């Protein structure tokens, strides 16, 4: 049986194709301005790589904030179910899944079977999502992928008072004028977003092991801040952005 999961997020589109429980193809493209166009590109690329046609896929399940855009899908699942299924399949010790995407953050508590016990979502405010780090990278005039490594060289914790991304930008300007070092400001940014995420994790109640997924999991600065604030180890799988698409593909196969 060949199944696929399509995860349409605010910034990226992810596809995972599975055959008999094994991943045979995966793809990630920027969602861009035209979702339909990007979705078509994402499919074309992954189908070419795997040598498949869309008709050969028995079942397609869509997830993500833009899941309704996926006209080719047979079914839809929530981002919560998809993330939980993907995470437990990658590591069966996981009981807490933290998913931080471009415009949403989620904390999900699952049982040994990967069943969702409780969850909390923030989709209202950029302070607990990837958009926050993007805005701060812009304000600090560094590339987003440089922000994480930069913060690892910080020697001093600087508090950031503002929660709101818009206010935090002005606060960074003040810190720049106070001659605060860039690495310390980068760390302050990651501490601030980790703080938002941790309060969400506390609401659902943290249980080990903890897995971090979503695009922001690739940010080492955030990863370090999160570990420090949670006071526990955090597992980051290979390709953290693809976990929900994987979960959707697994759910498509009835797993």
């Amino acid at each position, binding site marked *: 049986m060949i199944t696929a999961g399509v995860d349409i997020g*605010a910034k990226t589109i992810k596809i995972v194709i599975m055959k008999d429980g094994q991943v045979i193809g995966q793809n990630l493209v920027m969602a861009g*301005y035209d979702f339909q166009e990007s979705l078509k590109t994402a499919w074309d690329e992954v189908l070419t790589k795997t040598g498949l046609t869309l008709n050969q896929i028995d079942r397609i399940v869509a997830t993500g904030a833009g899941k309704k855009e996926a006209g080719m899908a047979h079914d839809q699942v929530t981002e919560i179910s998809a993330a939980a299924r993907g995470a437990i399949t990658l590591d069966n010790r996981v009981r807490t899944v933290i998913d931080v995407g471009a415009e949403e953050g989620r904390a999900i508590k699952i049982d040994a079977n990967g069943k969702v016990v409780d969850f909390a979502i923030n989709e*209202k405010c*950029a302070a607990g999502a990837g*958009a*926050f780090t993007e805005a701060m990278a812009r304000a600090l005039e560094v590339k987003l992928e440089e922000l994480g490594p930069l913060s690892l060289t910080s020697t001093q914790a600087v508090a950031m008072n503002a929660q*709101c*991304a*818009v206010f935090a930008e002005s606060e960074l300007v003040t810190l720049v004028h106070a001659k605060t070092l860039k690495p310390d400001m980068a760390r302050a940014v990651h501490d601030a977003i980790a703080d938002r995420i941790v309060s969400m994790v506390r609401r659902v109640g943290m249980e080990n092991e903890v897995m971090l997924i979503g695009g922001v999991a690739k940010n080492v600065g955030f990863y370090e801040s999160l570990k420090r604030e949670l006071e526990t180890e955090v597992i980051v799988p290979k390709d953290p952005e693809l976990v929900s698409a994987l979960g959707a593909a697994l759910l498509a196969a009835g797993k």
Partner: protein
Amino acid sequence: MAEFWRWTESRWTAPDKDWKKAKIITAGVDVGSVSSQAVVMVDGELYCYSNMRTGSDSPNSATNAMNWALEGTGLSLDKIQYTVGTGYGRVNVPFAQRAITEIACHGRGANFIYGPTVRTVLDMGGQDCKAIHIDEKGKVTNFLMNDKCAAGTGRGMEVFADLLGVSINEVGELSLKVEEEPPPVSSTCVVFAKSEASGLLREGWPKEKVIAAYTSAMAHRVVTLLERIGVEPDFAITGGIAKNVGVVTRLEKELHIKALIPKYDTQIAGAVGAALFARALVEKGK
């Protein structure tokens, strides 16, 4: 790059008053997160004021605002008997004898500017939004504020002025140039609302329709804050957003109440309150 968010700074001197004849000269300085104001009062009447953008350094902003207010008046800092600092940077007013919260100062200032009939003051500042109930003397009886989130603040409007490439002084007028009110933007967060608006612009929405959609969302957000505390007439709006006719018109419509027409720059209410408190402190001999 043009800076569309830059609003117009202002200063004013009373044409008919002479500080040399005054018995009590006091000042109020309101150092906000986005703007700073210095107000000088002679015997309880407005003498001069300035309204400037706050720099990244609070003590300098306070001094700059005061120097500009005094410019051309012949009055100097040493003739001012008492200065009260207020606002977000109130502890950073080097020449102030005391700091008083901006809630108290806005209540007192609104009472002076709009008269004793004001019971509800909505202060829409750069980085916060406050709903304040006051009595006939301008004393605060209750208040609510949002200072956590840019939605419903001046800073949020500045972000949109930059996005649209329209001066902050003109976005209000522009938002009223729609024949029919578009559905409000659905995102609360200014960062998300900005990406939503970018999408609308790409779809071919004209600027006035996009700013109308944001302005009505913003007005609605402020109404929910106001409704938690209740709106008792008379109703007055202070702060920079009080100058945005698009926000004010929509607020009035949604609340079914007219806002009083201001006589002075709406951004000086906090500093006026501070200067009045300063006068009261001089009279009490403190």
